[in-house]
């Protein structure tokens, strides 16, 4: 199981790193722009008249603050997921140890 997960993790890393190493497709306006933004650009292409009728109530004042909040989001998620997996791993290990002790005591 550990081995399988290690192999899967290596594939995930390779898939993530590969695009950064491979040459970029020709004719890109901006390398690694967000697909969401490209989608909204396609809207204005189909309907050049369209103007968004509502603005975000609050926007991160700079790219730094935005990356802070994105990092916060990932950190909260990983903290919780890591806590959960660590807790369950510890519990199942303790249970195995107790099982061993019971078996040894027979």
């Amino acid at each position, binding site marked *: *199981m550990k081995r*399988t*997960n290690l192999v*899967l*993790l290596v*594939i*995930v890393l390779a*898939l*993530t790193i*590969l*695009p*950064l190493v*491979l040459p*970029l*497709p020709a004719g*890109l306006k901006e*390398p*690694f*722009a*967000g*697909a*969401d*933004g*490209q*989608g*909204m650009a*396609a*809207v204005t292409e*189909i*309907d050049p008249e*369209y103007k*968004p*009728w*509502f*603005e*975000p*109530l*609050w*926007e*991160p004042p700079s790219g730094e603050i*935005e990356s802070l*909040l*994105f*990092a916060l*989001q*990932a950190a*909260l*998620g*990983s*903290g*919780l*997921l890591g806590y*959960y*997996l660590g*807790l*369950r*791993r510890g*519990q*199942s290990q303790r249970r195995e140890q107790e099982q061993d002790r019971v078996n040894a005591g027979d």
Partner: protein
Amino acid sequence: MHIAEGFLPPLHAAAWTAVSLPFVVASAWRINRLMREKPETKLLLAAAGAYAFILSALKLPSVTGSCSHATGTGLGAILFGPSVMALLGTIVLVFQALLLAHGGLTTLGANVFSMAIAGPWVAYAVFRSAQWLKAPLAVSVFLAAMLGDWATYLVTAGQLGLAFPDPASGTVGAWLKFVAVFMPTQLPLAIIEGLLTVIVVNLLTQYSRDELDALAFAPGGAK
């Protein structure tokens, strides 16, 4: 899958909100009942929500030279059933709409429908079908998470196509146009989401057997 704030005409924004709202209410009701009947799964539910939180925060590069992020909603859908994810996905989307100006309040209904309803339901249906066809657990999980991710983006493209039909080729033409914008980026990212979800499920089958049994997930202890 984020349609930016204000990028759906008011009528469409209202319609998608009306469509999504009952799902989110039903989801809250379902989670409430789950917590009452199987309180031991509370922490696992939180972990599934955390997984969606992580994956939707990480914007990954794609071979197309653009960036997007996975959804992370497939995991919770296959563990707890798809209806649970409507509320968890909404929490993620509200966080991003309010704090990151990513997505938006007017487009929340549409984004909830694609990411927190359509994606999880497709993931769940794929998972059950694959299991029914006796596919190995890892294969079922991979396909579910990957196709759930794609479904989210296909639906987003459809929502934009409905709102902005192409003058020449109509709604379908516009849909294909938006699919062409999103999918090349999303294809490899969905594979990443599939693999990551398999890793997490592997860990769960190893350490969280009790909870998986309570949820009747992959009975028989698949290895």
